[in-house]
């Protein structure tokens, strides 16, 4: 990977983040009525309206408002939620760990399980197991996340009783340390599997295609001819080169994963950012909704850049046009 590419790709973050800022700013002013009402809701008191007017500089000319807004956002100041009576950042940070745990677990799970599924289908020469797994992957890819979650609750939590139905830990439990971690892991298992399912399908399909191509290539045939064990051939000669496009999918789908987390949190009553976003939208608590949107948008954009850099590092042919 050339440094020039890295620098330019990172520099490209600036216009993208600026566009996100501008889009959210425009929405505030496109909303019907007084922008302070759009931001603060209709049930605030005079003091709070005054505070928000001041915070967003709503008395200033539009271009100065934009600068004030950009300054606020870039210093992670998203204002104060009237509904909760607290700064947006405090509320968001409080919920962030639960969501990070859920999405992190799902990302790890989808990578491992997706690769395994891809290798399994690509190396079967008989059609039945290949077709079965391919069919399952195709179905997972088309199934709505909330439906998978609801079915998982019906079958595995309410039905078999293997998993808890809701929440992140057993209510009223005062377990600490290892016992607490085990309890959280038990609650995490089902939501993480459900959230990972679509990514498993995506990673699996891509690995399968890439590996199939590699396994038919000359250098793999050569490795086989040398008498190497099939597992060595697949992992060392096939998978290594098939991995590069998989990396782009894993990184590029962080956005899907975060969006899926919102749904999964609602299905499983997981106390993260997603549920905060949904309840805040329903109560028109705009400062929180806007804060979460900006946080997610920037995260996704940065994740894409990191992905591109990893890809360029794996495949030196990548050049910035």
């Amino acid at each position, binding site marked *: 990977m050339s440094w020039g590419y890295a620098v330019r790709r990172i520099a*490209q973050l600036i*216009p*993208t983040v600026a*566009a*996100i800022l501008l*889009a*959210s700013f425009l*929405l*505030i002013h*496109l*909303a*019907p009525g007084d922008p302070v009402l*759009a931001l603060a809701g209709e049930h605030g008191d005079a003091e709070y309206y005054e505070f928000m007017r001041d915070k967003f500089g709503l008395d200033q000319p539009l271009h100065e408002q934009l600068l004030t807004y950009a300054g606020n956002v870039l210093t992670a100041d998203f204002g104060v939620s009237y509904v909760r009576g607290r700064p947006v950042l405090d509320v968001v940070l409080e919920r962030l760990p639960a969501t990070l745990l859920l999405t992190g677990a799902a990302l790890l799970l989808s990578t491992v399980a997706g690769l395994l599924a891809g290798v399994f289908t690509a190396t079967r020469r008989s059609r039945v197991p290949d077709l079965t797994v391919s069919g399952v992957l*195709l*179905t997972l*890819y*088309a*199934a*709505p*996340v*909330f*439906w998978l979650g*609801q*079915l998982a*609750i*019906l079958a595995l939590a*309410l039905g078999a009783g293997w998993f808890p*139905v809701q929440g992140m830990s057993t209510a009223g439990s005062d377990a600490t340390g290892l016992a607490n971690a085990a309890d959280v892991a038990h609650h995490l298992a089902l939501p993480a599997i459900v959230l990972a399912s679509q990514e498993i399908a995506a990673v699996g399909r891509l690995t399968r295609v890439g590996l199939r191509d590699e396994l038919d290539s000359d250098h793999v045939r050569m490795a086989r001819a040398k008498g190497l064990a099939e597992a060595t051939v697949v992992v060392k000669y096939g998978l290594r080169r098939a991995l590069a496009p998989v990396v782009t999918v894993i990184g590029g789908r962080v*956005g899907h994963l*975060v*969006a899926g987390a*919102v*749904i999964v949190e*609602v*299905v499983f009553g997981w106390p993260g950012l997603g549920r905060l*976003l*949904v309840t*805040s*939208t*329903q109560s*028109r*608590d*705009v400062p929180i*909704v*806007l804060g*979460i*949107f900006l946080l*997610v*948008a920037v995260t*996704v*954009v940065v994740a*894409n850049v990191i992905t591109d850099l990893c890809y360029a590092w794996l495949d030196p042919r990548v050049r910035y046009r």
Partner: protein
Amino acid sequence: MSATADVPFEPAAPGVGRRRGVLRGVLGTPSGLLGAALTGTLVVVAVFAPALAPYDPFAIDGPVLHPPSVAHPLGTDALGRDLYSGVLYGTRTSLVVAGTVGVLVLLIGALVGAVSGYAGRWADDVLMRLTEAFQVLPRFFLAIVVIAFFGPGIDRLVLVLGFTSWPMLARVVRAEVLSLKQREFIAAAKAHGASNVRVVVREILPNALPAAIALLGLVLAQVILIEASLGFIGLGDPNAMSWGYLANEAQRFLRVAWWLPLFPGLAILLAVLGLNLLGDALTDILGGRR
């Protein structure tokens, strides 16, 4: 009649013969056939929902939380509303959203892709950077922000999804235009004095669009999933019966009514699967570089 009408550089618009070939190609593979059948069913159900549904989906006229029976094939909800009618009418909402978003996406994607590919140079650079920026924009979250500001509704949902779902299409159209503009019949059209706009609209776009339309199936499948997801978290249009709304209602009765979550989700799965399979089959035949 224009001066170029009698000149034999014919293979511009895909002819009837090619269309027959596409149809045979799609229906000739099991997955293409399944995709076409599912998508066809989706459209038929959406159009004829009022005739097919035995009840008004919002009418309270059955036993409460009744499992599937002859009178209510998919059961009833906590208010005694017929789930079968709800699922049928939900098809309508999904298809209206997907259809209108599809038109917007096709228009914007074709415009951006054609200008980018045909004009080249700085216009291409600017438009492709713009496309990349839109591609990483989290659509689902942007839709939620819009709903937080403007309240739920189909119209704003269509606008948000339409104005954010075009980047993949623009890329495909651009790639097609780039390869088409090197071809001889384009040079021939130019030699006959056709303007740039005419060349793009009459000669290039008709040949670039099939690949874009093939991809449209995959894009609309995602749009249906997003629309349903918004409905599920309670942010759908309250005046329209939708699959997401039904799934949202089901969430509170998971312990007592398995049919409530099962059938709306199954309908979404079949719709998305159908569009994905059809899109894949069309892409295989019509090509399209992503």
